[in-house]
């Protein structure tokens, strides 16, 4: 017969009102006691698990003990445990489902000697909670009461020990009933299980972590992260030097552990810190995300940690932590976020199996961002299953201090995982590049040029501009198939015997009025984005490919710089800037120009301008053109030599061109090779940029947009110096001049790749060139270190760079200022310009990253379909260019790939090379020296890899679901890879440069001839999408010179 009792609960409703709830509570005379000592087993209805009879006592843990020490109670050695229902409910309500389920499983586990006693439903054990009694006290009282009942129920035959953490309870109940002992849990373990070492250790560690948690909760009240400090406190702290402001930079390869605060602004000058501040662990990072501007507090010196130098793989974090870290560096923790830099993130939903492991509550899903540096984001969605195979954009909403992960929401789907379009879209979103087509409103302001309604030079403009159509031979040199020609050249002899060199740049500002729709759009885009297989224009194609493009045989507006040079010394006598009208006579491509320069006239067949001429006039025209190109080259050499004397650097970058076949599959990866003509064109452009920079700075000393390249920190060169020393060269890095000279000398005639690598290392050590406003820094900081010029800007590519548009406006304003005319252009003030420069620099970086990532994507796709075991292309020659504790970094000249190769694999085996120099994995150890790394097997064989050794590597692709695929290198032999046929001979570095150039052009042309049909189809596609094939090589060279080189090795945990 049940007894009915009533329990009154007072609950708080969602609206904050107190709700009185009356619940029934039924008590019964007997509940199963699960004890073999039970006097009336029939009444108790003991079915199922019984306690064993061979125990000396029963243990009844208090609710607190069950909550905190459940892991110890799980030990199979502990027997005769009776969990009271009261304690179980306390776990359920206060510790959540996970721990409660653990307890339930424990009770179900037949091997574990524990039972649950439903004391609250037993009429003698149930005690109603008294008025004013705290929940905790009532629970302890109930459990004790039940323990006493249980003891009597077993007819006092088995002593019962109640273990509790409540001192008061021990005092109060300790000796109340004979046979029922109340002691603390620690005491219990000590006296009954002194030999159970594991339990003691676990107990200690639980105690300690609880104490820590309590300490922390005094500050943070049980939160996952400490609260951020208020903004006023942060600002005051930064001013006083207590906190340090900087940008948080997460180490991609140890995203969980390592992040750095890159110092920024005034605080770096005040404090004597040189290096970045290490932020170790997620807790210290305190909810800041990569890119946030944070305020950090330094930890005391004895808590400083070192960074890890081993090659880390993202999937074996813990292994990397086992490596001995380098010497300690300033370590700190984030106390507040000054500016959040949250953007859209591309994420991947967990696959089906992973979802299940995330538990029942499937509405909240942890998604993995594509970028390793971003923590997982918690998303509420019902569509998780449908979105599994897609790359998805999410946005972070908040990150509460009580939450381990940030909360976000789903925004849109980008595309399928591993699908080219989806992956490209991912790259774009990750770099915050928006490539929506130009809108109607933007396009309707554009001039038209159709066969019915052709664009014409207007008479007013004709009056105002200098007309060069009749007087000058203007031509352009660009890559094949280029549509956006923004620079043309001219050279002629003046009547006084002097030379006149002209650089004519497309007059984009004529069409793009300041603050027009197109202007604002171009400003947001800031640059044209070139990906490996496509490009996204800054300006609509009507401008970029037509009206602004200085095509052959049509009248175009231009902004020109013309120098009068001395005929022999090429000294600049006079310079003229202004708006002009030009008609380009020849639209040459680099290869043809180079042939003409080398005196090989067979290429004229390829130049359309010569086709319709008769033999005689063709000869005359050809002579004129060849003279011009020759003269230009001569001038360029001269200017270059002058710049070299000041210490201009030539740095090496490896660019890879992706060759596609007709199905748009990647056919081959070809490193791009420079020609001398490239240099000529580049030199003329540098000259123009330099003079324009001078001009606008003179006219507007406080609001001119220039480009600076600060001299690098000497300490960054240490690696370069050491590497060079390994080969017996010494690199003098004191100035750009000495660096350039010593780099030229550091040439190993047997292996030119050494020089290339040294140059690229030098590049890496340098900082990036940046746009800036002249009003924002002192004149001595204007210098361009790499080009060795005191002033430099970008003027020559207004079609694809917004900075050039700004410079054009500045130049035109300067011209009107000279003529004492009023300045029509409303120029940016210093402040605005600074802001704009920051934006453009930012976008340029995004453009570079996206280009690099897309190239890597294509590299991976190229190697993905190939079986690395059988396909010959996947085996290549590599050069070791850096040594790490567990591997080496390898450069593959054939494909321009840089990457890490491990000498020690995940199982701890090291590489060893047999007599046939084939490598295999053996147990052993690695020893790292300054310039070499030795792998010794337990059998005693050893193999040593020196810096700049040639090895044979196998290239494979490591697929990853949530992130981009990565190239994986594996050393398969310590001997250089023997090239089996001459087809690949163009990579043979022993050839002289000009020979090499011919070799390349020939082999490339051969290859192109072979697939002419295919190429045509591709060209059609390019036509359709208005894309030029590849990017101009001039642009490449210029970028290299601007030291904006990218390097994969940056990312290998350096």
């Amino acid at each position, binding site marked *: 017969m*049940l007894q*009915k009792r*009533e329990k009154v609960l007072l609950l708080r*409703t969602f609206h904050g*009102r107190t*709700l*009185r*709830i*009356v*619940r*029934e*509570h*039924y*008590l*019964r005379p007997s509940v*199963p006691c699960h004890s073999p000592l039970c006097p009336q087993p029939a009444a108790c209805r003991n079915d199922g698990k019984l306690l064993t009879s061979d125990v000396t006592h029963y243990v009844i843990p208090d609710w607190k003990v069950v909550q905190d020490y459940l892991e110890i109670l799980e030990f199979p050695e502990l027997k005769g445990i009776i969990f009271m229902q009261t304690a179980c409910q306390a776990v*359920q*309500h*206060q510790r*959540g*489902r996970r721990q*409660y389920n653990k307890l*339930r499983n424990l*009770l*179900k586990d037949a091997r574990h000697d524990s039972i*649950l006693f*439903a004391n*609250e*439903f037993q009429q003698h054990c149930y005690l109603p909670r008294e008025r004013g009694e705290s929940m905790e006290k009532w629970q302890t009282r109930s459990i004790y009461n039940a323990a006493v009942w249980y003891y009597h129920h077993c007819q006092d035959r088995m002593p019962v020990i109640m273990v509790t953490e409540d001192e008061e309870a021990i005092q109060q109940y300790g000796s109340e009933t004979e046979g029922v002992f109340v002691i603390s849990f620690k005491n219990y373990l000590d006296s009954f299980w002194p030999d159970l070492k594991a339990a003691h250790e676990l107990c200690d560690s639980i105690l300690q972590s609880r104490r820590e948690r309590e300490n922390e909760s005094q500050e943070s009240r049980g939160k996952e992260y400490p609260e951020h400090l208020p903004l006023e406190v942060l600002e005051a702290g930064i001013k006083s030097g207590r906190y340090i402001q900087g940008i948080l930079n997460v180490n991609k390869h140890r995203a969980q552990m390592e992040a750095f605060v890159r110092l920024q602004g005034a605080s770096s000058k005040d404090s004597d810190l040189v290096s970045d501040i290490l932020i170790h662990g997620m807790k210290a990072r305190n909810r800041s995300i990569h890119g946030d501007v944070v305020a950090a507090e330094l930890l005391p010196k004895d808590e400083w940690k070192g960074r890890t130098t081993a090659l880390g793989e993202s999937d074996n974090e813990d292994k990397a932590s086992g490596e001995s870290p380098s010497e300690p560096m300033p370590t700190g923790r984030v106390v507040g976020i000054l500016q959040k830099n949250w953007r859209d993130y591309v994420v991947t939903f967990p696959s089906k199996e992973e979802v299940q492991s995330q538990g029942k509550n499937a509405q909240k899903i942890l998604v993995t961002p594509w970028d390793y540096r971003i923590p997982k984001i918690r998303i509420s969605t019902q569509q998780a299953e449908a979105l599994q195979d897609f790359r998805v954009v999410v946005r972070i909403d908040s990150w509460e201090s009580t939450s381990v992960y940030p909360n976000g929401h789903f925004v849109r789907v980008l595309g399928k995982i591993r699908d080219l379009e989806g992956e490209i879209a991912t790259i774009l979103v990750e770099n915050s590049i928006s490539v929506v087509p130009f809108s109607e409103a933007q396009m309707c302001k554009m001039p038209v040029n159709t066969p019915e309604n052709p664009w014409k030079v207007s008479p007013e403009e004709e009056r105002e501009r200098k007309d060069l159509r009749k007087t000058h031979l203007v031509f352009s040199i660009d890559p094949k198939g280029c549509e956006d020609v923004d620079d043309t050249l001219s050279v002629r002899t003046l009547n006084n015997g002097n030379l006149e060199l002209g650089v004519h740049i497309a007059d984009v500002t004529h069409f793009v009025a300041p603050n027009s729709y197109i202007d604002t759009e171009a400003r947001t885009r800031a640059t044209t984005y070139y990906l490996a297989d496509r490009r996204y224009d800054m300006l609509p194609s009507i401008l970029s490919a037509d009206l602004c493009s200085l095509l052959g045989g049509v009248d175009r507006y231009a902004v020109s710089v013309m120098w009068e040079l001395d005929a022999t010394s090429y000294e600049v006598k006079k310079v003229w800037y202004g708006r002009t009208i030009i008609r380009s006579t020849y639209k040459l491509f680099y290869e043809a120009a180079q042939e003409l320069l080398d005196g090989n006239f067979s290429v004229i067949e390829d130049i359309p301008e010569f086709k319709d001429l008769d033999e005689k006039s063709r000869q005359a025209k050809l002579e004129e053109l060849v003279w011009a190109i020759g003269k230009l080259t001569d001038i360029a050499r001269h200017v270059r030599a002058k710049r070299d004397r000041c210490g201009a650097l030539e740095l090496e970058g490896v660019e890879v061109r992706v060759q596609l076949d007709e199905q748009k599959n990647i056919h081959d990866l070809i490193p791009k090779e420079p020609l001398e003509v490239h240099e000529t064109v580049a030199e003329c452009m540098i000259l123009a940029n330099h003079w324009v920079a001078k001009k606008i700075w003179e006219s507007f000393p406080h609001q001119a947009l220039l480009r600076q390249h600060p001299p690098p920190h000497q300490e960054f060169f240490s690696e370069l110096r050491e590497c060079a020393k390994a080969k017996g060269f010494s690199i003098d890095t004191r100035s750009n001049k000495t660096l350039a000279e010593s780099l030229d000398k550091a040439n190993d005639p047997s292996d030119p790749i050494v020089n290339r690598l040294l140059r690229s290392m030098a590049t890496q050590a340098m900082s990036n060139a940046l746009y800036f406003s002249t009003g924002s820094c002192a004149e001595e900081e204007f210098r361009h270190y790499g080009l060795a010029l005191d002033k430099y800007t970008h003027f020559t590519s207004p079609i694809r760079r917004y900075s050039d548009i700004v410079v054009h406006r500045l130049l035109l304003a300067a011209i009107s200022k000279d003529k004492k005319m009023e300045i029509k252009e409303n120029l940016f003030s210093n402040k605005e310009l600074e802001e704009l420069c920051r934006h453009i620099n930012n976008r340029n970086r995004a453009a570079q990253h996206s280009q690099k990532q897309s190239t890597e994507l294509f590299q991976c796709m190229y190697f993905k379909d190939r079986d690395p075991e059988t396909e010959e292309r996947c085996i290549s020659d590599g050069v070791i260019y850096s040594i790490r504790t567990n591997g080496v970094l390898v450069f593959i000249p054939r494909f321009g790939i840089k990457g890490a190769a491990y000498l020690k694999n995940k199982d701890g085996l090291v590489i060893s090379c047999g007599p046939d120099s084939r490598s295999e994995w053996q147990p052993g150890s690695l020893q790292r020296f300054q310039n070499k790394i030795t792998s010794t097997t337990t059998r005693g064989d050893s193999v040593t890899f020196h810096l700049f050794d040639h090895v044979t590597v196998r290239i494979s692709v490591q697929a990853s679901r949530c992130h981009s695929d990565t190239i994986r290198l594996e050393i398969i032999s310590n001997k250089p890879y023997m090239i089996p046929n001459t087809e690949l001979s163009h990579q043979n570095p022993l050839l002289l440069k000009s020979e090499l150039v011919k070799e390349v052009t020939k082999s490339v042309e051969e290859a192109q001839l072979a697939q002419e049909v295919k190429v045509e189809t591709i060209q059609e596609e390019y036509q359709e999408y208005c894309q030029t094939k590849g990017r101009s090589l001039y642009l490449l060279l210029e970028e290299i010179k601007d030291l904006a080189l990218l390097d994969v090795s940056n990312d290998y945990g350096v």
Partner: protein
Amino acid sequence: MAGLELLSDQGYRVDGRRAGELRKIQARMGVFAQADGSAYIEQGNTKALAVVYGPHEIRGSRARALPDRALVNCQYSSATFSTGERKRRPHGDRKSCEMGLQLRQTFEAAILTQLHPRSQIDIYVQVLQADGGTYAACVNAATLAVMDAGIPMRDFVCACSAGFVDGTALADLSHVEEAAGGPQLALALLPASGQIALLEMDARLHEDHLEPVLEAAARAARDVHTLLDRVVRQHVREASVLLGD
């Protein structure tokens, strides 16, 4: 806090009952002298009062009169203080109309209406406290009241609810169990013949599970019958003592 566990691994429900156990039922007949019949019932914390008038002549429009049987008119209402939150429940809202209709269907099946053509029987039920299973309490109270009024019936109408949690059928759901949102079945049974006067189910339940749930509800209804039968006999005994037989 984790969600409430409706049925523990040991087989206990939130309030300490086992799956098939009913809540405590207490009932009294003849609580009001002025009505023809009345009864009060407590099922756990659900409390209902039923009053019966009739059979009498049709009130209001005579057109409603049925030529061959009596008209059963049921009205349901619940007190403003019946739930945890005080809430005004006006007459004729959707819920009470529906409940009234259900009661009417139930009792048209049980009362021998053909014995009283062109007359009317009024059943008024009021819920004083609602803690789950209001329909069942109403039917049980009304049965007693109809009997108290001396209106001939085929049999007792005994009602009980049942639910389904974790593969087990639970009899006589309390408010907590109802609020958890699982399937809920209300059954009104004529226990002697085993005929079903009304069966209602909201929420979805797999066909395979219907049988055990129905079975649990029917068993609970029979248990209710035992109890009600005891109450009726007790009442009759008391009444006969008063009459001095």
